[in-house]
């Protein structure tokens, strides 16, 4: 009975929010693991040095842009194309930030800087659901921190596993490992092609990227993406006017 206080004190609310946030993220941790391994292995098959692969996971910490970055660097894209593509792919995070902001507005600057670093698709999904379920919790931001830290540590560990694995079996790169990236991207894209305009945007972007693949610095890729988005926008506008016209018709 040396520490009777510790036995009777209520659990620290900060710690319990942190732990709940991490626990709510467990399914996402399992889902991210194979991608960390694939990413690490792809790095060993690319011109990027192994330690910079880990650095990318530590500093960029955004799975899809890391895959795209490795793919573009391997294809000798200009750094400006890599940065522009990274920007386009990551713009969705701005929407995440805007959604989480109401819960974080009263927090000090350094808290918002830290949570900003930790935003991912997974952390956003867990955090937004938790805040919606039970808004106004005094230590709700610790829940976000728990979710974000869990994702961060998990991503570093699985990246390392992939880097070690790829370095131990250098023959993997000649096996056509980059097909793992193709399969991953198809698995992300196809479920999103549930409207005609999404399908048309994707097919246009793909066809133009093929046609323009020899443009210098991979600029053709960027142009193809912008044209694909434009096709999607035009078809969306038509869909919206049709809907408005249908409403007007008695």
């Amino acid at each position, binding site marked *: 009975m040396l520490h009777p206080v510790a036995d009777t004190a209520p659990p620290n609310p900060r710690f319990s929010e942190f732990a709940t946030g991490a626990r709510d993220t467990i399914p996402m941790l399992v889902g991210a693991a194979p991608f960390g391994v694939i990413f690490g292995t792809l790095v060993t098959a690319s011109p990027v040095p192994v330690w910079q692969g880990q650095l*990318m996971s530590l500093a960029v*910490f955004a799975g899809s842009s890391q895959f795209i970055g490795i793919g573009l660097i391997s294809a000798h894209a200009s750094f400006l194309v890599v940065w522009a593509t990274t920007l386009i792919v990551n713009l*969705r995070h701005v929407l995440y930030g*805007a959604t989480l902001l109401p819960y974080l507005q009263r927090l000090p600057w350094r808290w918002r*800087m830290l949570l900003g670093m930790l935003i991912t698709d997974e952390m956003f999904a867990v955090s937004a659901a938790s805040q919606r379920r039970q808004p106004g919790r005094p230590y709700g931001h610790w829940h976000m921190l728990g979710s974000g830290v869990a994702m961060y540590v998990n991503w570093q560990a699985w990246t390392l596993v992939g880097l070690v694995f790829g370095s131990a079996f250098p023959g993997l790169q000649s096996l056509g490992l980059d097909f793992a990236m193709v399969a991953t991207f198809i698995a992300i*894209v196809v479920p999103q092609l549930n409207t005609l305009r999404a399908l048309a945007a*994707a097919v246009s972007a793909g066809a133009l990227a093929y046609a323009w693949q020899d443009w210098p610095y991979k600029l053709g890729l960027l142009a193809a993406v912008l044209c694909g988005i434009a096709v999607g926008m035009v078809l969306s506008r038509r869909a919206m006017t049709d809907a408005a016209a249908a409403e007007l018709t008695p």
Partner: protein
Amino acid sequence: MNTLFTIAGMAGVTYLTKALVLLVGERVRFSPAARTALGFVPVTVLTAIITPMVLAPHHAGLELSWRNPQLVAAGVAIVVSAWTKQMLLTIALALGAFFAWQYGLR
């Protein structure tokens, strides 16, 4: 050195998109048109990256042939994904088809 520079820029751009709104507050607003455009980003970027890898895997012209393992396995991935929407299953079956085609069936 060159790749380090590229990675540093990627980190800066990514952090900007993640933290900007949290740091500057509600001054950032998206018009409905911008939101619609953003919605098309994932499907266009990812498709633009992989289409040349699948259609011309050796950077030597179009390989529209059943002998092209990338093309056959991409077809498998599209069918499995459209049917099941299971990400890991799609990747596993597509990789299996790819390696079987490349090393088994020739």
